[in-house]
């Protein structure tokens, strides 16, 4: 199939999905229930997969399919499953009192997005990307991920925050250097999996020794 996905054709589609990506991360910041957070994460990942496919075919990169599949497996199946498993194990579904209330977090998140877009306009880092919108979105998603980790108390939410960051990074790779060399891809996704497992283990350990996964209890070591 000779390339019908021209830049003109793909740009709008990509930008739609970009918006979805941003939206998902904002929703994650906004919501309280872990399960729903996981769902949003799932959605975000899956539209990352789609973006992968589109971009991949548009610059007809041979590795597209492989990357897409790995991502699908990792981000849309294994991680959400594992997270859900841990959530069930630790019977902790609701983020009770976050450090920063969801609404404020949302505001901050949008402020961040504004900041990033502004910065990229002045410095136009966007220049380096195929799709400037996606690039900016990626950066903002990374920051939002960090924001989530900062604003929440539950161990799990923090893990999810970390994965949102990973998504951001993934988006970044898509947009700048499509598909890094195979080894790295493998390595990265590998320790995403290891990561999630280990995180799960630690969450459970926290659960059993603090009988809750509320991280704010973990503040004995100071000074």
């Amino acid at each position, binding site marked *: 199939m000779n390339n019908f996905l021209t830049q003109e054709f793909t740009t709008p589609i990509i930008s739609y999905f970009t918006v979805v990506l941003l939206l998902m991360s904002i929703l994650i910041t906004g919501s309280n229930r872990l399960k729903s957070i996981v769902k949003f994460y799932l959605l975000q990942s899956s539209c990352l997969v789609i973006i992968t496919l589109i971009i991949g075919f548009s610059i007809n990169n041979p590795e597209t399919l492989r990357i897409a599949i790995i991502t699908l497996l990792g981000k849309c199946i294994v991680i959400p499953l594992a997270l859900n498993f841990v959530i069930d194990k630790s019977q902790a579904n609701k983020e009770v009192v976050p450090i920063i209330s969801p609404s404020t977090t949302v505001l901050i998140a949008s402020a961040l997005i504004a900041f990033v877009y502004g910065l990229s306009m002045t410095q136009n880092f966007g220049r380096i990307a195929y799709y400037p919108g996606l690039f900016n979105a990626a950066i903002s998603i*990374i920051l939002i991920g960090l924001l989530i980790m900062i604003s929440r108390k539950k161990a799990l939410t923090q893990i999810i925050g970390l994965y949102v960051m990973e998504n951001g*990074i993934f988006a970044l790779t898509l947009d700048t250097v499509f598909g*890094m060399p195979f*080894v*790295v891809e493998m390595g*990265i996704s590998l320790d995403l999996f*290891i990561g999630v497992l*280990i995180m799960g283990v*630690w969450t459970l350990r926290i659960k059993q020794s*603090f009988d809750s996964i509320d991280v704010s209890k973990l503040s004995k070591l100071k000074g």
Partner: protein
Amino acid sequence: MEIILLILIPFITAILCLLPKNEKQFAPIQISGSLCLLLVVIKLLNNVIKLGVIKSFNNLVYIDAFSGLLILIIGTVSLLVSLYSADYMIKSNEEYSFPLWKLKKFYFLLNIFVLTMLTVVISNNIGLVWVGIEVITLISAFLVGYYNKSTSIEAAWKYIILCSVGIAFAMIGIILCFYAAIHSGGVESLSLNWDYLLSISKKFNPNIIKLAFAFILIGYGTKVGLAPMHSWLPDAYSEAPTPVSALLSGVLLKCSLYSIIRFTIIANESIGAAFTNNMLLFFGMFSIALSVPFIMTQNQIKRLLAYSSLEHIGIIVTGLGIGSPLSIFGAVFHMFNHAITKTLMFFTAGNLSLKFQTKDISKIKSAINIMPFSGTIFLIGALALMGSPPFSVFLSEFYIIRAGILEKHWVISSLFILFSLIIFGAIMYQTMNMTIGNSTEEKNNLREEVSKLGVLALVIPLFIITLLSVWIPAPLFKLLNRSVEIIHGKGIL
């Protein structure tokens, strides 16, 4: 050949460490393993010094003098650690009344830990380096949480979370770098190889490289423990079993630093040294400065050492930031010295806190009378660590200051001396409170204080740092000088 062995030996040791039937059997396996490792390392270094650079496994492995130095550090420290833990881990296991499999787990993870660090320093692919460091984090987290107390779990958790975030940032840096590479006409398949990047780095887009460097510095800086990303460091060090703390501060820091430096070299090639130097200087001095108040008011022996590690990392980074051959020589030399000295300190501190059943400084009294050997060496080690001759730390710090003044960094050098004076005072005060003074407890004789291996573990590093203060052996000097050439372009000679 050596390279394969280098990877193989720790692996095999790790496997063997799963076999033993009683706790006495770990020591011989572990020690012999790390001895062989050290031998291989020496052989390898010999080649490195002869050939200059070793590349193999179609450019997957790249060993030059600088990685050689790191390998040497890893080999030496891991040997010391094995010597020490032979005695210590048994005692502490008794203290916590852990089952045997805990020990197995410990030794297994220990070897894997070493293994990963080795892969990090010998691999040519910055992506692989990244993966390696991530893996190290995940493994060492288990070692940090070994005792399974609430505090140790907390420490481990913070360690994982913070470091993973840092690593994520590092990833961004790598991506940007890769991008820069392929957009300045680099071949994709090679564009993560360090040597290749270096060769084409002239053509990079400076803005992107700057951004990438910032991300890398923050990212790996978290792992290194540069202020203000250092927050996990004292917790992890204080909660981990002593041998692990020694490895963490002695080696792991250096490995992460190694990857920063590798990247700095590329950045310097493409955008000139000024930018990177300023950033390094800033973070270095900030780390030193931040360590001062915590050391002054510290009341826990291992946290004290942890913060002193923060200071020393600051010193090394400052040395790199000053950016003259001499200062860089000081920095790399300091990497080695700090590794050895800090290991020594952690060991002695471990002995003390095991004897007194507490990490609380105010509860440790008159150690030098109660356990003459460890107490004395603890005092001497503190002096050495604070950089007073005739110990090698003095030399490396001296070179850095000398370079600083030579490069007209008046303020930085003065602050440097001022801070190190305050820290000297604080740490010596704490140390003397712990070691000297009249005691209520009865003396116990040298025999039951430490085993022969324990003695070795303390005497060898002391000997090394004392020797290095008067006589730097030619091979080591070659190694250091070469690494300076690699980092700065020209050596001090």
